């Protein structure tokens, strides 16, 4: 089953407001999503929050597609308490690109973006505290990138801090 176009009032509003910034409004298994240009993501989140009542930022995450020119897909999952609806906002960004932070729109984006940075190495421009969150600050490498093998680790860090050759 492939994604079908998402019809309705909201996608129409989004297309009218953001025009060519929006690539695709679609549904997969009843779940709606919007694909947008990276620069438009924060204005879209703002629009959805203020004018469409999507006031709850559920999650921010990324997916790594190393073979694509713009290898990371950023995914923002939103929910509206008033409408009882979910929508996902997605955008593709290249390695090294610095997408703007969502913290001014949703305070809760802070840790979620830090985790994306920690795992994928995507830096968010304007983030108040862009540091690793789960891994040690001196750790090298970004584990959720596809080239990072499941048994790989930062050998130097493990040796220096744990005094062992390998954590495996």
């Amino acid at each position: 089953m492939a994604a079908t176009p998402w019809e309705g009032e909201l996608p129409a509003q989004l297309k009218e407001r953001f025009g060519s910034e929006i690539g695709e409004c679609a549904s997969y298994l009843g779940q709606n999503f919007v694909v947008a240009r990276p620069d438009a993501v924060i204005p879209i989140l703002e629009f959805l929050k203020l004018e469409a009542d999507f006031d709850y930022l559920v999650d921010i995450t990324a997916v790594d597609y190393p073979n694509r020119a713009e290898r990371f897909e950023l995914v923002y999952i939103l929910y509206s308490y008033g409408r009882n609806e979910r929508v996902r906002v997605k955008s593709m960004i290249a390695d090294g690109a610095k997408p703007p932070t969502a913290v001014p729109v949703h305070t809760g984006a802070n840790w979620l973006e830090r985790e994306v940075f920690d795992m994928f190495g995507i830096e968010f421009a304007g983030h108040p505290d862009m540091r690793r969150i789960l891994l040690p600050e001196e750790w090298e490498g970004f584990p959720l990138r596809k080239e990072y093998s499941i048994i790989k680790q930062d050998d130097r860090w493990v040796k220096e801090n744990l005094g062992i050759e390998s954590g495996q």
Partner: protein
Amino acid sequence: MPETTFLDSTELVLNMGPQHPSTHGVLRVILKLDGEKVNGTECVIGYLHRGVEKIGENRTYQQFAPYVDRMDYVAAVSNGLGYCLAIEKLLNIEAPPRAQVTRVILTELNRIASHLLWLGTHALDIGAITPVFYCFREREEVLKIFENYCGARLTTHAFRIGGLQYELYDGFEEQVKAFCEMFLPKVDEYEELLTHNRIWVARLKGVGILSGDECKEFGVTGPVLRAAGVKWDLRKAQPYSGYEQYDFEIPTGENGDTYDRYLVRMEEMRQSVRIIRQAVAKIPTGPIGKTPKVIKPATGEVYVSIEAPKGELGYFVVSDNSTQPYRLRVRPPSFVNLQALDRMVRGGLVADVVAIIGTLDIVLGEVDR
């Protein structure tokens, strides 16, 4: 008179944890103190990071299922339910009715077990020693049901994608009914110990207030959100596993303080009993579902979430039409809720930090994954 006072009042930085009993695991909180007043905090987390999401990408859909139990290990059944529902959604299948009702019973029992562990340790943190013994006594009865059902007490792996692994054992209904019968008066007993206890009230009322708007701002869900007066529960808002068939209330608070969160969770245990009683009275006969031998969902992605004891637990799964998830993201309620800690403790007293960590009901296995 000396030129300077004997003691300069400078800001004190105090380190709490990671080895600290009241942080319920390995949470490190760095506190900035002005006397007893908290001026700011920083959470250092990740001590239990095991790379669950990376493991997910390197296991088949079936192989990964037991791993989810190790995130929120006091509510393993809920984790398993969320995972199974997410993969079922991806496959566009549904568990048969008998499996769904059984899932509801076990998940609600697990909610009770999780809340009991919270209550016991939260009260212990604040200095009430008795409740923890009572809570663990009753929690034991829930764990016995799990053990009889699937052989495990904590990391149960009770469900399978597409249904259940095991048929219900003989005497399951009776044991669950007997538990409900026994448990309801116990909740009243806990309340007698605590609800109007002057010390308990003094330590909890007005402490760690988080308003409904602040909860939404941070994405905080679960009992913390409900205690702030927002009547929102995924079991009602977007029912799954047939929750729409059951008659139950969503308890809410008014002030969003630690005391209201306590009352909300107490009432949630009663409501869980209510759901279990309805479910156990009408377990349908029929198949319990079968896990497909090979799980190879079509290319696509879904986000599925459930109301776990701690809040919204979500799974975002991306499939590339292979037997392993291309990407598996867990949206953990504890991680998101913990972010609000700083807002809740700022301006309060250092002794309240312990109460507020307790009331957030975090499990570090889930925060760190």
